[in-house]
């Protein structure tokens, strides 16, 4: 949770009156509901609704109201249904709420289902020209002739303009300041004067139509708050891209795959500004590979040659890269792999979010392996781990994974700004000059000189201690060997090496209650839902502590956290409890019976109530 939200949370926790899940209905509402509701906008993919929705989100954000936007989009370029969910919450809750309070209906294809799902008393802002009917009389209905208004501006682009019309109408319903709205339009269409003008006109049409036609019958409103001027909105993938540049990435090899492509595209987009000299030559190479296998090979090649190589992919890509990952582990090649996870198995739900690659990353490839996995939970961490990951890869001479997910990677989140790397690059144990080399009594590429399992390496081209790197068994000199003692010594050292990384990796973030009743260990983008889950649980009288794991192998603090708590839930967005499986295997026996898995995924971004209810059910089961 970022600092701003934390502050709001602390202020509000003192005198809050519960969470609005069932609002009073009807025309005569007794109270105004400010900054605590969810808007769901149903449109079709490829109609330009994304920019309209971002203008709305930016405006709410600029009014100082904590808000999150989630794009639920199909695997399609044009035509299939898409929803955009905006959650406003002074509490700082960022997950989509349990219900929709304001529904915008533009897409006829999902009209009936969207309408049927609404609770009585919900607000419906709908396109009167969509040739669909309003068949509910228990909702607050605001029909707007969106298409007709849009055609007035320009019939050729009426479809695009329709989206801005509903933003104008929403702005009027909720009381969004016109100036703020116009500033967001200018931000969205940077410098494109015609587009800015057209959109502002369209906003006005939507706004005026509502003002002239309706009397506001709903309780929802936006109250401006003190805006934290340091904050901005950014998605996790762009943060990773920037972080990679500040980590000095020298080679990016990638193959397009949702939801990771925007990491690579971000790196490409920032290369001219960040990595290019006056002559136009860059010190960061980018290669679009023929497939993920080749991308992984290129990453290993760059690491072998002494450079900082990386790729960004998603689960299916990691599946293809498995053989190389094993080679990287066994031949000890620094290499960086970002996995922005999506719903599997197989092609799965390619545009939906899940945390289901944890096991595959941690124990990737055939044979006994164990890999370092960094797991950011905020956009600030996406940036930080974006540069740190190279240091870990070179320090431990091994593949290191960054594990983000679609929700964190592709949705925009409030950011406090990025902090400059606090330490110089760690290039690991590389012998770069003859003098250093000569000081070694005995040199072997795989000789454990320092007792930490990490050997020294020389680089191709240096002329020092050349070896033929191999994926076959080898001795401390790197020579082919099938001797049992060589294999055993190598595998034991590799285990020690990664084991030694445990407490040097990002430590878990703890928020502990002194009662130490229930602990929740969670990871990644669940960060955006955990506080709401916690609050729901505490309403039942439970005292809940939080522990966000930020890397594998798990930091020793996690074991201590579990030790301190009566029961600990391992909470994750998947079916099988993959993190739970890993922790169970590594925890001492007396703790195993005190950790319990709550794993759930339906493809949607996590909604707090679903997880809270499952945690309660699990605790009931445990206490029986």
């Amino acid at each position: 949770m970022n600092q701003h939200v934390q502050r709001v949370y602390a202020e509000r926790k003192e005198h809050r009156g519960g969470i609005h899940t069932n609002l009073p209905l009807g025309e005569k509402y007794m109270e105004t509901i400010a900054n605590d509701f969810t808007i769901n906008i149903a449109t079709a993919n490829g109609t330009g609704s994304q920019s309209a929705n971002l203008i709305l989100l930016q405006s709410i954000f600029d009014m100082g109201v904590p808000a999150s936007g989630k794009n639920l989009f199909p695997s399609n370029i044009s035509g299939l249904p898409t929803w955009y969910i905006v959650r406003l919450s002074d509490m700082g809750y960022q997950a989509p709420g349990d219900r929709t309070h304001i529904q915008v209906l533009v897409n006829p294809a999902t009209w009936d289902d969207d309408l049927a799902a609404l609770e009585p008393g919900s607000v419906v802002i709908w396109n009167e020209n969509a040739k669909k009917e309003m068949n509910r009389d228990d909702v607050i209905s605001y029909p707007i002739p969106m298409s007709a208004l849009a055609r007035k501006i320009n019939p050729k682009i009426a479809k695009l303009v329709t989206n801005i019309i509903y933003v104008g109408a929403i702005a009027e319903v909720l009381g969004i300041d016109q100036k703020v709205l116009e500033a967001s339009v200018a931000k969205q269409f940077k410098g494109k004067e015609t587009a800015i003008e057209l959109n502002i006109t369209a906003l006005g049409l939507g706004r005026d139509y509502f003002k002239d036609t309706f009397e506001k019958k709903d309780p929802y409103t936006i109250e401006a708050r003190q805006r934290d001027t340091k904050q901005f909105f950014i998605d996790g993938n762009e943060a990773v891209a920037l972080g990679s540049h500040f980590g000095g990435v020298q080679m990016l090899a990638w193959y397009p795959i949702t939801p990771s492509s925007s990491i690579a595209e971000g790196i490409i987009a920032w290369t001219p500004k960040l990595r290019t000299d006056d002559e136009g030559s860059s010190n960061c190479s980018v290669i679009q590979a023929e497939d993920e296998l080749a991308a992984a090979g290129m990453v290993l090649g760059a690491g072998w040659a002494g450079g900082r190589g990386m790729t960004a992919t998603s689960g299916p890509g990691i599946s293809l890269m498995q053989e190389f990952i094993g080679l990287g582990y066994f031949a000890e090649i620094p290499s960086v792999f970002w996995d922005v996870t999506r719903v599997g198995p197989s092609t799965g739900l390619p545009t939906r979010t899940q945390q289901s690659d944890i096991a595959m990353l941690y124990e990737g490839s055939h044979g006994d392996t164990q890999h370092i996995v960094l797991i950011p939970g905020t956009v600030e961490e996406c940036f930080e781990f974006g540069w740190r990951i190279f240091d870990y890869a070179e320090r431990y001479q091994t593949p290191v994974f960054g594990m983000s997910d679609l929700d964190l990677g592709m949705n925009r989140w409030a950011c406090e700004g990025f902090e400059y790397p606090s330490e110089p690059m760690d290039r690991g144990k590389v012998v770069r000059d003859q003098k250093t080399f000569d000081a070694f009594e005995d040199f072997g590429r795989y000789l454990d000189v320092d007792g930490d399992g990490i050997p020294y390496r020389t680089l191709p081209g240096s002329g020092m201690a050349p070896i033929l790197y191999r994926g076959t068994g080898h001795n401390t000199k790197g020579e082919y060997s099938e001797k049992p003692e060589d294999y055993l010594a190598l595998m034991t050292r590799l285990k020690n090496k990664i084991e030694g990384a445990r407490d040097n990796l990002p430590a878990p973030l703890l928020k502990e209650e002194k009662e130490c009743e229930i602990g929740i260990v969670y990871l990644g983008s669940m960060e955006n839902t955990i506080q709401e889950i916690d609050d729901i649980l505490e309403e039942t009288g439970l005292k809940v502590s939080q522990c966000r794991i930020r890397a594998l192998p798990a930091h020793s603090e996690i074991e201590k956290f579990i030790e301190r708590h009566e029961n600990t839930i391992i909470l994750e967005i998947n079916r099988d409890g993959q993190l739970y499986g890993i922790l169970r295997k590594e925890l001492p026996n007396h703790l195993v019976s005190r950790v319990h898995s709550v794993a759930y995924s339906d493809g949607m971004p996590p909604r707090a109530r679903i997880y809270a209810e499952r945690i309660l059910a699990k605790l009931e089961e445990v206490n029986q």
Partner: protein
Amino acid sequence: MSEKPERPARAVKLNVINEPKDSYTGGKSSLCPGCGHDQISNVIISAAWESGIEPHRIAKMSGIGCSSKTPAYYLGKSHGFNTVHGRMPSVTTGAYAVNKDLLYIGVSGDGDSASIGIGQLIHAIRRNMDMVYIIENNGVYGLTKGQYSATADIGSKKKKGPINKTQPIDLCALAINLGCTFVARSFSGSKKQLNALIKAAMSHKGFALIDVISPCVTFNNNDESMKSYGYVKENEITLHMTDYIPHFNPITEVEVPEGHFRDITLHDGSTIRLETISEEHDPSNAVAALTALHNAEENAKHVTGLLYFDNTKASLAEDLGLVEKPLIDVADEELRPSKNILDEINSAFMG
């Protein structure tokens, strides 16, 4: 390694950078005695030594298979990477992206290049990745004990098993169609020709593919095999006599032939001289090269020599638009943008 060894008192022959041939040899081969691959390894050693390349500036790359084991048997002073099956091109590409100044010599086999790794081979060619790519082609999988590979000729029969009826993939024809900038075929038994071609490939900037027929003495050297020593010797059509004239020594070593010849200047200033035997072959003509391959195939022959050459295409390094020095030599402080730049970015985002 920068200091050159002094001339020893004994009369050991040294190359142009005063290195003895021993500086280019490797470990003892564990391949079957008589294997064509060992002959190719020896030619690689000679070619590198004679060309006077500093051994540590070479990177030996390979995939998996009998052929891919051979980097252990040559150039012991060079770093190398015996990668995974069929995926040596991608590893080489990544290494090259961060250190374009090494000479990358890849060795692969017909299983490695024509089956599992054909996609990576194709894309490395397409990028005009700057490397020497030698295929040790014997028509069978050796390490797994003699299954046909995708280059086995129609009508050929290995020691055990049926006659091959499946259409082979001609990697030279494939490469020419893909616009590969240096395409040659040779035979492990033709040391002189192979030596000249490997040297020329090392002087070339771009992807240089040499498909070398290299008989498998254990599984595919029987008389009915079209990739046996006996068969290739009988049925080789040599396009031209090949001579390599190094840029550092242009006068000696090669006598000017009496008949027709064609000189091709390579990127480092060296020359490959192609002396016409019967009909003249123009290596800049892709159609002529493909015709030669098709005619040979139709008559169950093997055509060898420099089939195709094109020095007009940019290599991958140029396409990447990188700074002059290899990226691994760029200082950390240059790689990481400054704090001021990050402050600027933060401010711009805050709007």
